[in-house]
Structure formats: C-alpha cells, structure tokens
C-alpha cells in the first residue's frame, strides 16, 4: 500500500532512517529539541511518523484483472458428495503408514469417486480445485479423470500457477483454448506456430471431429516435420483408424525414419483390407500350411500345421515394416515369421485352412516346435486387430491345465486378449480361471475386467480368498488382489463377506496370527464396499 504522507514527510522520514542507522552519536536527528536526549527525540519523531504513515495508508492501483474463467454450466455436486470429496482429498499420500488395519484406503477410492462424478456430469466445487490439481500432480494416473471433473476453470488456474502446468499439457485439446473448426485461420496459425503439445492436441481434437481435415492439416507440413514429431503425429491416427487413412500411411512406409515406417506398417496391418495387409497375408500364408499326410513325428495321418519360415527378409518385407535384425537370442527366420503372422489379417487363415474356425485352427497340432511362435504371433494379431473370435480361441477354456501355466500366451498376453472380449465374457473367463488356478496368477487378468465385477467373478474372488485363508497363508500374500477387490467388488457383496470378518481360532498348521489378519483384511474389504455404496448414493442427483 502507499502512504499519503510520503510526499510531504518523505524527506524527514528518510532522514530519521539514516540517523537511526548511523546512530545519534554520529548524527543529530532532524528537528531535535534542545534539552531532550537525542535518541529519545529520534524515537519520538519516528513514533509520530510511523503512526502517521500507517494511518495514511491508501489502496494501490488495480493491476490488469484476469480474464474471467468460462462459467461451468454443469450442475453442482450434492452437499454430501462435496463433503466426501473433501475427506477423500484430505487423505493425502505420505501422511501415514502402510495399509494394515481395518480402515479403507481413501486415496484409492478417489479414482472411482471421480469416475462416478464424471458419469453424472457434475461440476467440481471451485474451492476444491487446488487440492484436486495437487492430487493429480502427484499421480499421473489420476490426471484424465481429475481434469475432466475440474473442467475449464482448472485450466484457467493452471495458467496462473506453474505447479499445475501439467494440466495444460495433459488436458485433451487444452480445453477451451483451442480454436474450433469454425476458426480456420486460428487453426492454421496454431498449427504453424504452436508448441508441439498444442499441435498434438489440436490434431487430436480435429481428428475427433473430422478425420479428413486432420489428415489434410498433417499432410500440409508433413515433409518438414522432425522425425520424432512425425512419429507422435502418426500416433494420433490410432484413434478412429479407417480405410481412408490408407493412402497417407502407405506413403509413410517410405519415410526416412525407421520408427515412422514401422508405425505406419503397424497401423496399416490393423486395417484388414489395406494393400499392406493383403501383402502380409500373402507372405504369411505362404509360410504356413496344413499337412494332411501326417506329421513326420506322429505319422498318424491327422492334419497338422507345418511351418516353413522365410529364408530372407527381402526389401519388400522391409518396406512393409518387417524389422530385419532379430534381437539377441532369437533366430532370424522365426523373428521374420512372427512379424509376418502378426501383421497378416486373421481372416486370411480360415481360407488357408479349408474354412476352419479359429478354434479349429488353434486346436491343430503344429509340427517341429513352431507352436509357441505361431500362437504367440496370432495372439499379437488378435490384440492388434481387436478380434474377439480369435481372442476367445487363443485363450482357450479357462479351466484347461495349460491356461494357468506358461503355455503359448503369457499372462500379460492373456490380459490383452481378454480386453478384446465383451465385458460379460471377460468376467466369465476370469472367474473360470480363478476357480481352477486360484488367485496367485489372476492379478493381471482381474485388472482388465469391468468394474464393479460381475457377480460370478466377484464370487470366484471371494471364494478364492476364503480358500487361501483356510490354507493358512497370510493375507498380504494376496494384498494386490485384496486391494483390487476393495475397489472393484460389487458393494452388494458386502453382506456375503460378513461371516468372514470374524476372527477365527488359529488352525494348527496355519501361520501364527493369520486368522486375525484375515479378519482384519475382510473387515477392511467390507468397510470399503459399504463406503463405496455410500459414495455412490451421495452422488445420486437430488430427486433422482
């Protein structure tokens, strides 16, 4: 603030300060009254001036006011949900110890709370935005949901506080700041002059509305872009990839950058009708055949698959994205074969194998130890082409012994295959898997199942936990699954858990104290489920 008296009394105040610094032994204070001690005179004068300066305080000139944030038209949160959000945000990481005990881990429920709030389309309470942004700053996995919930005002805030700059980068399209399709000049300028992140956001936003326009924009500057930028721009085509993208991608197959070429080929192979897919189908099917005369080893006359891997990686293959150099420890020919089969459209195999279904094809024996190579490549193709029929066939029955073992598909691959299945089928398969193989391998598979878990899956998990308890192991051996169950189990299952929350007598062969820990873990599970049900109810719109 400024002081009125500064102009008139500025000089004497300055003199008082100077005298105070030097000391009255060296300098006589201004306006000293004879007969009064010099330091006292100085203090008297300074006291008068200090009070005068303070009493004369006036406001300062207003600086340029910020542009107001766009109003949030979404309905406000119900009061109970607002209070819940405060509680969830108060449970910040780093303020306490591990996850033992019966109380729920609130921070773990925040993602679910955000998903529900977003599904209802509520506006975030403005005063909660700083805490939300702080939470998202520390946890990148929270960012999309937080930013969707926090809305345009959070981006407005992020422009004022460097701590939250991530919001400007992470927000899809940077929110309201991007020019719309009705502002072609704005679009062109941002595409020409924008920062890389802004340009990606712009491209993604336009692609979502008008794929052709986005391609056109990208083509306009494509040859002048840097290789790593080309790669990122190419990635935006992944969403909404369509036949219309083929010419552009086909051109990119001759790109200077090997990574760009490989990505273009990968995208093309996901378009089953593309010329590249047809070329790959031709190459792949040439290597794989059905031998009706009987495999050399079995000699039974039953049909079997024989594989003749490519003998060279010719320039055509290389141009279509096949990497010629195998990683250490892999044979070149099997490396090439894998890439061909992975990139070939799965539809090609039925014709190759006399109209067999995927199940029948997968069931065929494969000669000369090629099975894991071939099935592995089919798995990658099924994931890439999002083909549920083939996924189903490659997953096999959940109860077969090899489903739990190493087999052709690793657990990570199985999780990816599962992700291409429809939700109910996914849950059913995982439930079957758990019923046969238990929980120790199930973690990754559970992660791809829809939340809340379908009843058969939920029951399979709870039963398996109960079995693990009876076997006398400690609950923290299953802490990953337990944590997932807390977040994903249907709250309706809380009732079924009630009998498990009692502390049992330790069985003779059980780990000491395990029963108590299990009771605690089940209590936390039940408590968390009830809390989730409350959370959900609190978010119901009033009068709904």
């Amino acid at each position: 603030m400024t002081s009125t008296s500064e102009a008139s009394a500025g000089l004497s105040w300055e003199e008082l300060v100077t005298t105070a610094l030097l000391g009255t032994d060296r300098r006589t204070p201004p306006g000293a009254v004879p007969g009064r001690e010099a330091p006292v005179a100085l203090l008297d004068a300074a006291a008068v001036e200090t009070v005068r300066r303070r009493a004369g305080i006036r406001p300062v000139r207003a600086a340029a006011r910020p542009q107001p944030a766009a109003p949030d038209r979404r309905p406000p949160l119900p009061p109970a949900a607002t209070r819940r959000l405060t509680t969830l945000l108060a449970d910040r990481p780093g303020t306490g110890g591990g996850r033992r005990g019966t109380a729920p881990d609130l921070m773990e429920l925040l993602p679910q709370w955000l998903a529900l709030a977003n599904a209802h389309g509520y506006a975030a309470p403005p005063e909660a935005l700083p805490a939300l942004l702080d939470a998202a700053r520390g946890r990148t996995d929270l960012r999309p949901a937080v930013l969707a919930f926090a809305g345009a005002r959070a981006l407005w805030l992020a422009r004022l506080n460097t701590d939250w700059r991530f919001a400007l980068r992470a927000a899809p399209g940077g929110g309201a700041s991007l020019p719309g399709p009705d502002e072609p000049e704005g679009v062109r300028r941002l595409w020409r002059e924008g920062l890389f992140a802004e340009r990606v956001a712009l491209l993604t936003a336009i692609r979502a509305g008008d794929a052709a326009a986005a391609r056109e924009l990208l083509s306009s500057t494509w040859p002048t872009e840097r290789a790593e930028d080309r790669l990122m721009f190419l990635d935006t085509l992944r969403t909404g990839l369509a036949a219309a993208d083929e010419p552009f991608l086909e051109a990119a197959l001759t790109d200077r950058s090997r990574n760009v070429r490989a990505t273009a080929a990968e995208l093309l192979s996901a378009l089953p009708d593309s010329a590249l897919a047809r070329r790959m189908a031709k190459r792949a099917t040439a290597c794989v055949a059905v031998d009706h005369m009987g495999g050399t080893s079995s000699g039974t006359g039953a049909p079997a698959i024989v594989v003749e891997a490519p003998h060279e990686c010719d320039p055509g293959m290389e141009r279509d994205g096949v990497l010629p150099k195998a990683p250490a420890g892999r044979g070149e020919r099997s490396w090439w074969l894998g890439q061909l089969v992975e990139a070939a459209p799965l539809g090609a195999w039925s014709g190759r194998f006399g109209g067999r279904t995927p199940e029948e094809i997968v069931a065929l024996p494969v000669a000369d130890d090629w099975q894991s190579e071939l099935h592995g490549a089919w798995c990658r193709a099924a994931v890439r082409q999002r083909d549920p029929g083939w996924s189903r066939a490659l997953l096999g029955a959940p109860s077969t012994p090899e489903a739990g073992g190493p087999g052709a598909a690793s657990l990570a691959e199985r999780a990816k295959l599962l992700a291409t299945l429809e939700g109910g089928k996914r849950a059913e398969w995982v439930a079957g898997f758990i019923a046969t193989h238990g929980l120790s391998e199930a973690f990754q598979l559970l992660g791809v199942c829809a939340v809340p878990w379908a009843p058969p899956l939920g029951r399979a998990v709870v039963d398996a936990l109960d079995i693990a308890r009876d076997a006398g192991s400690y609950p923290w051996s299953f802490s990953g699954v337990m944590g997932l169950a807390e977040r994903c189990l249907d709250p309706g299952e809380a009732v079924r858990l009630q009998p498990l929350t009692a502390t049992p007598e330790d069985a003779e062969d059980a780990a000491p104290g395990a029963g108590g820990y299990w009771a605690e873990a089940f209590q936390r599970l039940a408590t968390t489920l009830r809390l989730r049900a409350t959370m959900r109810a609190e978010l119901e719109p009033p009068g709904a």
Partner: protein
Amino acid sequence: MTQQGVRWTAEQVLALAPDAASRKAGSKLAVAGPWSSAGSSDEGTVWGLCKGSGSKPYQTIIDVADSSGPAYKCSCPSRKFPCKHALGLLLLWAGDDAAVPSGAAPDWAEQWLSGRRTRAAERTTRTDAASGATSADPEAARRRAERRADRITAGAAELEQRLTDLFRGGLAAAEQAGYGLWEETAARMVDAQAPGLAARVRELGAIPGSGPGWPVRLLEECALLHLLDRGWLRRDLLPDGLAATVRSRIGLSGSPDGPPVRDRWLALAQYDTSDSHLTTRRIWLHGTESGRTALLLSYGAAGRAPELSLPVGLAFEAEVSAYASAGQPRVALGERFTAPEPTAVRPPGITPAEAAARYGAALRDDPWLDSSPVTLTRVVPTPDGDSWQLADADGDTALPLTATALSRPGLWRLIALSGGTPVTVFGECGHRGFTPLTAWAEEQSEDARGHAVALC
C-alpha cells in the same frame, strides 16, 4: 436445542484436528466399520464404541453443543486432543445419518455427560464465590496490582534505556549484535511481568536479516515500542480508553466486564498461530443483528489445539462480553443458546479504499494495531507481478495481499473460487496489506447461494 439434522461439515470437523496426522487418522475412522452402538442426541452429543487393537472397544463421546466449545472424552491412550476416534466419529456423524442415528445416550456416555453438567454448575458457583472473595479483600488486591505495576514500570524504564543505547550507536551496529541481545531483553520483560513488551521485543530480534528494508521496519517497531513504554509511564495522563489499550498491549489481561450482548453470531474465521510455548486461536465473529465484529481468543499449550472451536460459516445465538480496552474487538464467550447452524447472512462489505481508511481510523484508538477486520465486497483476486491483490471490481483501487497470505494454500482456494469474477472476502487489513481469511462466491442464482470457504 440443536435442530435435528443440522450436522457439521467434514471441513468443520477436520478444522478441530490438532495436526495433519490426526486428520488422516480421523478420516480413516470415518466409516461405519469399526464403530458399534454409535448414536447422537438432538442436544448435540455424539457417542460410539470404536474397535481398537485391544479386546475392549474405545468409548468415545463428544459434546458438540457445550457452551465452551466441543468437549471430548475417549478411553483410548492417545495424547492427541481431540483424538482420532473423536474426529472419526464426528466425521461419520457429519457424513452419514444412518451410521449415527438419533437416540438416547448409553449409560457410559450419560455418566460422563451428567458429570460435566454438574461440574459446570459447580464452576459457575465457584466463580461467583471467588469474585466474592476478591471483593472481600480489595485492599490486598490493590496492593498486588500496585506491586506488579511497579515491576512493569521498572521494566519499561529499563527497556527505554536499552532503546536509547541502541539508537545512540545506530541500527547498523545492531545488525551485528544479533538475536541474543533481544532474547535477553525479552527475558527481562518477562521478569518484569510485562508479557506484551516481551513479545514485541522478541519480534524485534527477527527483523535484522528479514530482507530488504529491514532498517525501516526495525525503526518503526522500535518507535512503537517506545510509544508503548511512554504510554505506560504516563498512563495517568491518558484518556481512559487509551489507557486501557496501553494496559492490554503491555500484557495486563483485563477482564471481560462489558455488559453481556446477546446476538446471533456468525463464525467468520478461525485460525491458529503458535510459538514454542503456546497455540493461540483467533475466532472472528459477526453479530448478524448488531453488525458488530468481535474476536474470541483461545489458548492451548504447545502442540495441543485450543479447546474452543467454532465451525466457520455457521451461526449460533450466544452472549458475549467485551474486554475493557478501546479499539479492540476482543470479547469473551458467555452462555450459548443454540448450536451452530447454517445461515444465509453475510457480513456487509466495503470497498478496498474504505477498508484502508477504516484501518487508519482504528489507529486513533490503538496506534499499535497491525490490522483490522474487514469484509470486502465485489473484489477480484488479481495477479500483480509476483504478488496478488484484491482489486475493486467496480473501481481502479486494490489492496495488496500480505506475504503471509501469499504463502498459504488458501490463496489458491480464493483464486479458484473467484475464477476472475467478484467475490466477497473477510480478512484482516493493515499496513502490511490484506490477509484473506474467508470468502463467499457471488450468488449465481437464488438457489446457489455461495457458502463460506475458509482460506486459513
């Protein structure tokens, strides 16, 4: 007399927590799981049994509507106050009607409650008796007061001598003298039974080395200290009000002997400051009928939250009595007639220019005043270089925010609440700038009346 269904918000409950760890621990207990036999009464008592690590559950009781602030009792061994069980139960009560249903208190809770009521009644009687005893021997009380006044006078004279010596040699030299000089002088002032002088002297020690402009700040504070010394030494010549202000600034606690004023008080803000010995809680109140602004002070030993706590944004009916001293809004809380509940009333606001003028005018009664409580209306938090100001939405003046305000997380809650549009802000306005304490968003529509957002 609590209306049924009027419960605190989670924020208000969390404000009771003595530290961040308690907030977290309390939040974790705010679920139905560990609790059994939980319930609440319409009078504002909440109780429950919480399963702990032992076989016997902890008995937790909170009396929310007690006239001197919430009272807690828990059979757990925690030394935190309130403990996590009390916080968890209150959060549960605040959030979930079903988990803490209305009902009659069980025996173990009722025993404690009736004990409290008896003790409270006894205390009232005792206070009456004590005041009777004081008046019975006015001569002894007068002699005691005189002895203390003599000590303070000796202390003030000694302090004057130290200041004189300081300014003879110059402040530049004082920078080298360091903190020890001030600590020792402060200790002398404690001996002289002048805690107000001691606190000011201690603060002087921190000024050298507090950044550019420190000589000016040191000169100002020394001059005001000198003014206080002189005021004490010549208090007989001062008008009554100013003499009372000097006495309270010196640290002679007056008594809340003003006539009891009954009003519906809105809790405007509550915040704590603490040093190594003491936590001081300041609660600003607004009389919704009288328009009066009042300050409640409550103290706790270091590391313990003071007992008095009022939920910001809620109003309650109570009597307060003013402390004798001109220009100071401090009151003592008397009887409370209702529990805190939501209100639509907001304090009337003024402009930044009027706020600065009000602080200037307040210095007439208390030249040592650092700031006065003010509600600003229609102001926009506005960035100003590295700093922020509250700019008048309808004019071209603004109040800069204090360094304290800039370093608090509440600053960003305020900015977020505003979003570049005008807000109403209550805070303290003084020579260092404005410290916002509570804000309300402008009303978007009739049904979306902005609630109070605590910023401290």
